[in-house]
Every structure is written in structure tokens, then in C-alpha cells.
């Protein structure tokens, strides 16, 4: 089935036994091996895989854009039957101008910063032979199609004057200008907020219907792929290990890697006290490493001798499904790697360990006051995990920096640690207070000094926070490494020699060096692959229950926050919108903003939730809307009262706080009704 059909016009794209090598330091290292798949006309094909699996290389090979040290060593890429790999440069360029388009992850870098949006877009039409005026007209029409409400104004702007979501729309408009046969989307929404991502995905889905374009959708996010694509291929170490219709692959995976990957993701509202997360042992093979037998064998729980000897072929499983596993029929019996331990949720009632009263932070920017935080009062109880969610610009990071003492809040803000006042600046805090409050940053690459060995990084923290030296210091370093399951043999390594997960373990160990009472986790897993994320989440949960520390867990990933948190606080434009037990916040009744956030997140099961879309952009914190700051985007907007009066943060149920004018009982009714009825009640209210 894979071999024939080279002239099959039904296929927009056919990738046939594609093998790509990168030449690194004079040695050819294969990064893709015999990858075969095809995309039918108008079909959306999703390619998932973790970093280093070769996803982007597939895209570059299809575009014929491989970096200079990369070359296609075998196989073919056929666009409507024409082989791209054997074409001359001029022909490929022609094809790229007319039939192939690509949308990259970072729209800010894909647009030329010094050319107005309109001129850049018009260029795409001019290339196709349109005159200046016609190109401009068509650009405007195209921007309308990507749902930009005021295309004339947007065209006169420079890319940096647009938000990330708007930029990505412009890039998509540019890509669709030529009405391409194939549109490649490489992680198109990875840098965007959940609500913006939802809008862009809706847009891509709508445009696909209109343009009947075939789509190659590349993402590490399984849920996005499940939502967008009819067929899915799972890439691991440069090999396609499983393929089939999206709904089936994710519901009934037939390769141990896919099975393991799905078990790593906190989804469907799982919580640490109900369902544990699994992890995949070991590391993916190095780029271009020579592997005998199955690529996944070293990490597979079902591995047998034959797996190490013979590379499994692509077994056809019927219904256009394939799996590259000798024991595909047993894939679902993959044993659990992580212990199936449950971590009890905590519902503490005592006095807060860390309290924040009337916290405000105003930045002075270009002569304007930007209120990053406004009147946030929050108590973190000992031993709990308080999740903090909100989109970018909501003030999450400012809140964390104020607590840590890295940013001075406005006067009037009061901080308290275990009942005693906490100075605003870290320099003015006592040694005990400094020890008590530590942090795990988002990006371990930046958080660890790249010139220091792991031993020195941990040792300095031990010396500085615990006052230990010499032998005691070494013992403590080993103890820390052990507690985060970091190999002692790697203590002399530098961060650049470690994988992302190992680096984050070092950062966690450093945070625990002085026996802290509260650890702020600022997006600790968002820079990591899902399988690594699961291991880090398990580690954090385990450390917390063992050491009895308290976490403030900041994340934009609602699945992760829901999994680990006992209570959740929702921030919007620097204001606390909702606060309550995790399950209370995630189940109706909730604040309309929380409702919209939850609705924006795609889920792997593909089940359609009643969808609520937020319109427009997050308003600027320099000019926050009057009244309730959320009223400009609120799907449940009441009327004048929302515009004029800021609702108080009221306790609507015991322990559940909400900042909304709509009575909680009404929200409960509204949010549990089926969507159609809800729409009517909204219009009548």
C-alpha cells in the first residue's frame, strides 16, 4: 500500500520512504528513516512527536528547505504526483510560490518587522501576477477571511504593533494567498494563549472548509492534533511508529510509545488524588544514533528479544491503521512505569502560611501607569498547592516576583510569612525568610548558570541557605540529588550536557536545598516534553507530600494545574477573578472567564464541549476597561452594571470566591444548561 500510488491524483502529498540525514561534524546522521504517509485532497494530517523526533525536518523536507547540512538520502516527496526531491531549484521555487505554504511557530519572526503588514501581504499576490491595486484589494479581502475585523487599519500597521494572535492570522492569510495545494502548519499555536489558540484553530478549521486545502499539521500537543486532523502519524526518533485516524489512534493506541505518551498527559480532569500519571523511562536515542531493532525497544516495557534484533515493519492493522510494533496487539498491556501512587489532596483550614494583602504593582511605561496587579489578597495555606492560572498579561509572574521580593510592590501592599511581616525586598528579609521562600523557574536553561557544574550549583545553595561546608555540604548535595533522582555520577556535568528534564531536576533540587516552606513553581513544566513533564509533575507532587512544603503553582496549562492543585486562583488583568478548591473552580458554577478558559482548551478525547469563544484581545493593563475589567470580552455580559461598577470578590459558597455581578445560582443554571437554551437565556437576560 505504501509502495504504489505514486501517480495517484487523490493524494495531495505523498511522502514515500523519506530518509533525511544531517551532516554533523563531518558525519552523516540520519534523522528521518523511511517515513511514509500520504495526505488526501482536502485532508488534514497531523504529525505528533516530542522534540527531536524529526517533525520539523519532515516539514522542511517537504518544502525543500532543509538546512545546508541536511539532505534527502532516499525516498521521495510527491506533491500531486510530482517528485519534489528530484526537482531543480527553479522549479521548486515556482512550486513554493504557487502550491506550497508554510506557517511557522513564531509569527513575530515570520513577518518582516520593517515592512507594513499590508505591503507584505500584497507581495504574495504580486508574485502571482496581480497588479498593485488588485494586490491591495485582494489583501484586504484575505484579511477579512482570516477574521480581522478592521483590515484597512491592520494593513497600515507594522507587525510589532499587532498581538501574537493577529500576527499569526496575517501569516495564515499570507500562506493562503496563493490558494495552496498543501498548507504546512508547524506548531502554529504553541506560543499563543489558550483563548487565542482556540480562535486560531477555529479559523484554520473554517478556512480548510473554504479553501479545500490539504493540511500537514505538526504539533507536540496531542489534543490540538486530535481536534484538527482526520489522520494522525506518531513520530519517534525519526520513524513513524503509528498511523491512523486521529480519533482511533488516541482512543485505542497500538504502539507502546503512543500508549505511554497518552498516559503521561494529565487530561480529562484527572487529579493527583485520583489518577497517577505514568512516565516513559529513559531518554530518546541521540540524533542519528544507529539502532538495531525497534527504536523504542530500550524504553519499552513490553520489550522482548526479537525487538532488539529485528526492526518491526509497519504492520497494517486494517482501516488504514499501521503500527511499527511486533506486539501491536498487546500495546495496551504496557506495564506502568511510574508507581501508581496517589497523592492526597489537602484541604487545610488553618491560618495562611504566606499572605498577601491588597497587593498592587504599577509599572511606569512610556508615561503611562500600567497596573500589573491590582488589589490582590490571597492566603496560601500550609501544605497546600495553590494553582495560579491566567493568560499572558494577567499578572501571574508579577505576583510571583512580588512574593519572592524581586519586584517591589506599590505601597500599601502587605506581605506576611507565618504571621510575621515580610519585607518587600529580598535583601531586607531575614535569612530564615529567604530560606523559606524559593522558586523553580520555567526555563531551566536560563535558571542554571551554564558555566557551573551541577555540584557547584547545588553546593552554593546549600552553603548559602543552610550554612553547611565541607563534608556536610557534600552529603547534603548527594541527598538532594537523590531526592530528585538525579544520578550522582552526573554531578560534575554542566547544564548544557543534561536533557531538559534533568536540568529541571537540578533546579528543583536547588529550590529544596535550604528546606523551604514554600516553593513557587513558575510554569515549571511548560518548556518540557509531555513525557518529561509527567515525571517532573510526579516528582513535585511526591516531594510536596514527603517534605510537607507548600506550592504556589503557576501555569497556563489547565490540565496540569487541575492535576496538581488543591486550590486554584484565576487572574485576569491583574485582578483575582475566582478562588476556590480545584474541583469547585473547574466545575460549574464558575466565573465566566474561567468558563471561557476551560472551553478554549481542546481535549484529546475529541468530545465537543459547549464552546464559548472570547472575542478580541486582552485589553491593555495601561487602560483597563471600566467597571468589571472582563466586561469587554464577557460571554455572559449583563448590562450597564458590568460597565460601571467593579464587582467585589465575594464568597459565593464556603471557600469559593468570585468577582462577578451575576448571582452564583444564576451562573449555576446558565452553565449547566445545554448550549442552545443557554444562548436564549443570555439574550433574554
Amino acid at each position, binding site marked *: 500500500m505504501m509502495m504504489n500510488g505514486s501517480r495517484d491524483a487523490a493524494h495531495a502529498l505523498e511522502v514515500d520512504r523519506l530518509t533525511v540525514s544531517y551532516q554533523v561534524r563531518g558525519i552523516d546522521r540520519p534523522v528521518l528513516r523511511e517515513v511514509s504517509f500520504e495526505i488526501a485532497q482536502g485532508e488534514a494530517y497531523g504529525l505528533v512527536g516530542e522534540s527531536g523526533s524529526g517533525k520539523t525536518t519532515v516539514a522542511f523536507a517537504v518544502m525543500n528547505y532543509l538546512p545546508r547540512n541536511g539532505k534527502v538520502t532516499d525516498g521521495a516527496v510527491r506533491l500531486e504526483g510530482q517528485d519534489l526531491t528530484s526537482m531543480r531549484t527553479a522549479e521548486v521555487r515556482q512550486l513554493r510560490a504557487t502550491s506550497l505554504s508554510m506557517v511557522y511557530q513564531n509569527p513575530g519572526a515570520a513577518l518582516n518587522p520593517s515592512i507594513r503588514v499590508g505591503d507584505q501581504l500584497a507581495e504574495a499576490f504580486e508574485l502571482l501576477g496581480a497588479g498593485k491595486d488588485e494586490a491591495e484589494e485582494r489583501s484586504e479581502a484575505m484579511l477579512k477571511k482570516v477574521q480581522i475585523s478592521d483590515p484597512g487599519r491592520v494593513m497600515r500597521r507594522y507587525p510589532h504593533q499587532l498581538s501574537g494572535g493577529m500576527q499569526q492570522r496575517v501569516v495564515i492569510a499570507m500562506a493562503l494567498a496563493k490558494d495552496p495545494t498543501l498548507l504546512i502548519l508547524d506548531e502554529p499555536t504553541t506560543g499563543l494563549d489558550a483563548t487565542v489558540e482556540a480562535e486560531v484553530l477555529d479559523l484554520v478549521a473554517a478556512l480548510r472548509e473554504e479553501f479545500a486545502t490539504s493540511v500537514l499539521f505538526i504539533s507536540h500537543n496531542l489534543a490540538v492534533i486530535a481536534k484538527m486532523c482526520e489522520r494522525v502519524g506518531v513520530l519517534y526518533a525519526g520513524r513513524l511508529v503509528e498511523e491512523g485516524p486521529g480519533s482511533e489512534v488516541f482512543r485505542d493506541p497500538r504502539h507502546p510509545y503512543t500508549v505511554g505518551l497518552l498516559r503521561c498527559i494529565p487530561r480529562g480532569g484527572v487529579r493527583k488524588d485520583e489518577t497517577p500519571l505514568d512516565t516513559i523511562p*529513559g*531518554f530518546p536515542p541521540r540524533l542519528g544514533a544507529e539502532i538495531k531493532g525497534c527504536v523504542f525497544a530500550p524504553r519499552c516495557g513490553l520489550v522482548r528479544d526479537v525487538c532488539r534484533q529485528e526492526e518491526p515493519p509497519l504492520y497494517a492493522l486494517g482501516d488504514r491503521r499501521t503500527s511499527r510494533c511486533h506486539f501491536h496487539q498487546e500495546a495496551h498491556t504496557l506495564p506502568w*512505569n511510574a*508507581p501508581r501512587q496517589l497523592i492526597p489532596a489537602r484541604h487545610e483550614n488553618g491560618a495562611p502560611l504566606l499572605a498577601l494583602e491588597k497587593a498592587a504593582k504599577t509599572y511606569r511605561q512610556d508615561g503611562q501607569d500600567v497596573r500589573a496587579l491590582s488589589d490582590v489578597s490571597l492566603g496560601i495555606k500550609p501544605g497546600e498547592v495553590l494553582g495560579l492560572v491566567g493568560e499572558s498579561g494577567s499578572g501571574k509572574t508579577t505576583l510571583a516576583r512580588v512574593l519572592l521580593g524581586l519586584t517591589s510592590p506599590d505601597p500599601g501592599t502587605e506581605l506576611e510569612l507565618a504571621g510575621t511581616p515580610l519585607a518587600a525586598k529580598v535583601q531586607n528579609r531575614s535569612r530564615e525568610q529567604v530560606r523559606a521562600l524559593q522558586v523553580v523557574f520555567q526555563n531551566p536553561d536560563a535558571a542554571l*548558570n551554564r558555566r557551573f557544574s551541577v555540584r557547584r550549583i547545588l553546593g552554593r545553595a546549600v552553603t*548559602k541557605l543552610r550554612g553547611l561546608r565541607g563534608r556536610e555540604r557534600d552529603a547534603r548535595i548527594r541527598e538532594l540529588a537523590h531526592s530528585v533522582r538525579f544520578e550522582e555520577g552526573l554531578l560534575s556535568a554542566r547544564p548544557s550536557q543534561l536533557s531538559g528534564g534533568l536540568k529541571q531536576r537540578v533546579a528543583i533540587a536547588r529550590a529544596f536545598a535550604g528546606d523551604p516552606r514554600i516553593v513557587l513553581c513558575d510554569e515549571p513544566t511548560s518548556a518540557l516534553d509531555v513525557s518529561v513533564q509527567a*515525571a517532573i509533575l510526579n516528582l513535585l507532587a511526591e516531594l510536596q507530600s514527603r517534605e510537607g512544603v507548600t506550592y504556589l503553582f503557576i501555569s497556563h496549562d489547565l490540565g496540569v494545574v487541575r492535576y496538581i492543585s488543591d486550590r486554584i486562583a484565576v487572574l485576569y488583568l491583574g485582578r483575582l477573578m475566582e478562588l476556590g478548591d480545584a474541583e469547585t473552580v473547574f466545575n460549574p458554577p464558575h466565573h465566566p472567564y474561567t468558563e471561557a478558559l476551560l472551553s478554549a482548551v481542546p481535549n484529546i478525547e475529541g468530545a465537543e464541549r459547549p464552546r464559548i469563544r472570547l472575542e478580541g484581545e486582552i485589553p491593555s493593563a495601561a487602560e483597563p476597561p471600566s467597571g468589571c475589567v472582563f466586561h469587554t470580552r464577557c460571554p455572559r455580559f449583563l448590562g450597564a452594571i458590568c460597565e460601571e461598577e467593579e464587582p467585589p470578590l465575594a464568597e459565593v459558597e464556603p471557600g469559593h470566591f468570585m468577582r462577578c455581578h451575576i448571582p452564583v445560582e444564576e451562573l449555576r443554571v446558565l452553565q449547566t444548561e445545554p448550549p442552545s437554551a443557554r444562548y436564549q437565556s443570555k439574550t433574554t437576560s
Partner: protein
Amino acid sequence: MTTPEEQVLLGERPVPEAPRRAQDEARTARRERLRLLLRSRTFLAGAAIFNIFVFCAIFGAAVVPYDPLGSPADIANQLQPPSSSHFFGTDQLGRDVFSRVVVGARDILTVAPAATLLGTILGAALGLTTGYFRGTVDDVVMRIVDAFLAIPLVILALVALVALGPSKGTIIVVIGVVFAPIIARTVRAAVLAERDLDYVQAARLRNERAPYVMFAEILPNVMAPIVVEFTVRLGYAIFAIATLSFLGFGVQPPAPDWGVQIKENYIVINGGYWWPTLFPALAIASLVISINLMSDGISRTSQ
């Protein structure tokens, strides 16, 4: 260390070859970088020329055929063109130009690196301080630096040398001080990029003192631009010293300094006596070029 069984219990089965991998990779990466440098033709060409001058500086005085300072009897031998007995000819006082060029390497190769090193140390300290503290300190210091940079280097050095009197020590201090602000700018730019990284925040959260953060945490991460800047400045320092000597404010005659030799002999070029000027000039040029080639090679492989 945990046993494999324990690790299964703890939730992770290790892959046997995983731990060794990182260290091997570190060693290979370092060896790789060295190999790249040694394979860089630019660097090798520069290093070859530079080493010739280093050899001249160390052993030159012992191997040259004539006394570079000459003797009263030489005067009879003045302005002889290059020949087999005098490879580079003789100068106005009948001294052997070849011997003087070879021995002249010693002065330049001690004074120039010392001056550059001084400038680099001062500049790095200044750049680290202004970049790390920013705010008022930064504003004030950088405006002073701007003003300083607006004055031509040679004029500034001249004034200082006249005030302090010419000697090797003065030259080193003057050139070092003049270079410091230039180097400070480069270092400051690199520090600004570093100081916002989370490892610096993490250090502040341990309540580390500013000097520790600046010199122990940040400095190692900005060494690459500092090294490149040092090599670039070294070339300029050689030029500057030769210029000052030429103007009579640097190394003083009868020392066989290249700048001094050019100064003493350029008047007779019009008479067709090109050799006493050309050879020291070539020496300056080739030394500067060799340093620039090495600097290129280093900055290219350190990327």
C-alpha cells in the same frame, strides 16, 4: 546510589548507557572545539606569524648578527641597501635594520599585551558594574564614557604622557585607561543580556552579595566577548604604541622600537633609502594582522 530495583520502585528505570553519555559528550565537545580551532586555517596562519614574533622577542637578542644598538664605528656603514651581510640593510647611523627589527619585537610584545590586559580588566570591571546595577550609576558612568570616547585616542594619550613623562610603565597605564571605556561598553552589553536571566534571580533569592553575583556568576558567562575584545584591542594597542613612539612620546631612542625606527628614518625615504622605514612598518603590519587572524579564528569557533 539506588539499585535498579529501587529505581523501578521510585518510578524510573534507568537506561544503562544514559549517565555516561553526558560526560562523554562534554569531553568530545571540548575536544571538538579545540580541533575546530586547530583546523581553522585563519587561526593557524595567524598563530604561525605570531609565534615567529614571540620567538624574536624571547631569543632575538641572542641570535641576531649585530648589536641592535650599534657602535660608534657603524657610522661609516650608514644607509647600506639590503645585502647578504645586512638582510634589511642599515640605517642612518649604520645600525643593522634586521637586528633592530628582530629585537624590537620584545618591547612591543611586553608593553602592548600588558596595556591591553590592564584595559580589559578595568573595562570588564566597569562594564560589569554599570551593566549589573543599571540605573543612575549606569547613566552617569556611560555618559562619562561617551565623552571620553569623543576625544581622539592619540591626543588623550599624548596629554597624559606629557604630564607623566614617557616610560614603559606610563605607556601601559595610559593605553590601558584609554581602552577601558571601549571594552566596558562591550562587556556592559553582554552583562545586560545576562542579568535578566533566571540564574541571576536565583542568586538574588539566596541573598548573594552584588560582587559575588557579578564576578562569580555573571563574569564566566561573558568571558567569550571579553576574550574576543582583548585580541581585537591587542592589535590596536600595537598601533597606538607605534604611533606614540613615532611622535616621540612613547618608547625613547635608542631603543630598537619599530615606531622609533620609522620616526628616525622616514626623512630619508625621499632620498631613495626605503629599507630602514619599510621593514619595521612591515613588522608592525604583520604582527597586527597575525593577531587579527587569530582573533577571527577564536571568535568563529567560540560561536
